[in-house]
């Protein structure tokens, strides 16, 4: 942890009796792209505002390059921030907006001009300096906001749902541009979003927020393959969850009994025999077959197809089994009719390596 650029230690923020951020600890390595992902009201934006100095923490420490940031007001922190609605100053031209942080730092006029020009080129808007923000499209305003936040070369760039106001197509294009800038300039970025797809696409690591706490920090693959909690399993991608109780634990694998199901699943350390767990299985890792063909009695569920949705490159089946409902995603690799139809009795099964047991915090 000695290489951490930014270190949040037990950071909390309470508004009266409401705890917005609850004991958050996470660190960011230099050059890393870290996302704060979570539903609205999960504390991710408040955490970001505390790093920027716009919100004062109730307790906890923020360290930048091992120096405490807490006593510094926002204007002495030297951290770039991109706001959700861009917050470009409407009475200043694009060039004046970008020059603002340099003026505040007493940069010489000729240098300001050169640096504004350079950063405008970087975001692909070199001729837009004399324009007013109101004369730009949403995507262009976003680029200018980005240019303004990085022109003074801050060691850390914070982005608060920067693409939330853009339409899907433009958002995907801007995601790529931000990733390219990140790679090219080696910036360290904390990126707040509620869009799990965006977080998976862009991030080196993701911190998943829920109810003011961080549920898990990890690479996109880790979060997808090894969710630590039920919330993470549910929030990142689609997932089928089976409640049950651990009946036996073996090397890297455990047996879970849930109703008349017998499940074999991978698990993270810390799962004990007798513990209440959920077994999470991704829809695209399951297989469908006629009931008679299914072998064995582990990781298998008999049910009936209640919904069939055609998605172009795949078909989504909703299977009913007793009071349980699960989703199966099947790639379409050849043209032709679906192998199964609504009302068909089927068996759903999967490999033990594709199931993971997560602790059920509500019951244990």
């Amino acid at each position, binding site marked *: 942890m000695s290489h951490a650029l930014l270190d949040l230690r037990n950071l909390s923020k309470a508004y009266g009796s409401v705890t917005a951020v609850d004991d958050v600890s996470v660190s960011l390595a230099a050059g890393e792209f870290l996302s704060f992902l979570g539903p609205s009201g999960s504390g991710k934006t408040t955490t970001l505002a505390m790093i920027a100095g*716009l919100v004062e923490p109730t307790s906890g420490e923020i360290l930048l390059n091992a120096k405490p940031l807490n006593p510094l007001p926002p204007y002495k922190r030297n951290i770039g921030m991109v706001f959700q609605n861009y917050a470009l100053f409407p009475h200043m031209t694009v060039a004046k907006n970008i020059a603002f942080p340099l003026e505040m730092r007493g940069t010489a006029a000729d240098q300001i001009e050169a640096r504004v020009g350079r950063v405008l080129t970087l975001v692909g808007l070199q001729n837009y300096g004399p324009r007013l923000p109101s004369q730009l499209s949403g995507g262009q305003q976003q680029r200018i906001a980005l240019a303004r936040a990085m022109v*003074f070369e801050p060691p850390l760039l914070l982005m608060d749902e920067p693409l939330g106001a853009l339409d899907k197509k433009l958002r995907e294009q801007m995601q790529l541009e931000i990733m390219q800038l990140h790679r090219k300039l080696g910036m360290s970025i904390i990126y707040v979003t509620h869009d799990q797809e965006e977080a998976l696409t862009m991030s080196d690591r993701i911190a998943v927020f829920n109810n003011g706490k961080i549920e898990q920090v990890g690479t996109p693959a880790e979060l997808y393959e090894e969710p630590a909690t039920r919330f993470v399993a549910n929030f990142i991608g689609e997932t089928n969850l089976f409640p049950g109780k651990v009946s036996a634990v073996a090397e890297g694998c455990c047996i879970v009994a849930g109703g008349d199901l017998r499940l074999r699943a991978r698990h993270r350390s810390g799962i004990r025999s007798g513990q209440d767990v959920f077994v999470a299985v991704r829809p695209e890792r399951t297989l469908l077959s006629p009931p008679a063909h299914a072998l064995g009695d582990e990781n298998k569920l008999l049910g009936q197809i209640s919904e069939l949705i055609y998605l172009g490159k795949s078909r989504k089946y909703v299977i009913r089994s007793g009071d349980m409902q699960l989703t199966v995603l099947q790639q379409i690799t050849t043209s032709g009719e679906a192998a199964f139809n609504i009302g068909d009795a089927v068996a759903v099964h999967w490999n033990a390596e594709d199931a993971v047991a997560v602790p059920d915090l509500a019951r244990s």
Partner: protein
Amino acid sequence: MTHARAESWWRALRVLITVLLVIFLVAPMIIVVIISFSSAQFLMFPPPGFSMQWYRKIFADPAWFDSLTTSIEIVVPTGLLAMIIGTAAALGLSRGNIPGKAVITGVLMSPIVVPVIVIAAGMFGAYRVWNLNGTLTGFILAHTVLTVPYVVSTVLASLQMVDEQYEKAALTLGASPWVAFRRIVLPLILPGVLSGLLFAMVISFDELVVSLFIGSPTFRPVTVQMWSDVLGDIDPTIAAIGTLLFLFSLLVLLAEAVMRQTGIGAGRAGLLEPAP
């Protein structure tokens, strides 16, 4: 066909009602302006002929000239003081994190709601203790109290249009709170601040009741002079001075309208180069 005819009939009616209403509102002022140029020796309409005698009388009579000067001496500092205090109050109320905001707003706005005669009597009593009756300082302070609410409400309205994100962005870009105010917030609320200033000046210039109470025979603004003139012998001097006041208010209103049109400080300044 009939539909079109009915439509034009309604339009004619609308125009007629509007014209009548405008005449009803403006006619008294027009009559005052006409009488001020009267050649008669007393108030009568229509005047038998026209002359500039009453304007000459105003500028020749030291009582009128002094009272006009007194009014200007009161109005300018009052306007500036009300502008500064009102803007600061509005900023605190909209951006500050202070308890009892509603109560403070209520107290600040009370001079608009409380009957003027009550305020006047109260000030008269207080000024007797402080020896401020009949002084410039007393007038400026009293009129500032009366005009601050107008500045507060215009500036508050402007501030509501300015996203707080701008200030936060300025802070993260390295501007201290004072610089963020001066460079970002003030230019954006300037139209509101200036119309507050103009309102304050017009209200102060127009004020009679409080001025009657705290004035003295040797220190009287133009409204008090008018009042005592009307109580004595009435001649068209009053119409001439009324016309001058009317002109002042008109100019202020025009200035305000021009300001809004050109959008001083509202982000529409500067010639723009065409897009590539």
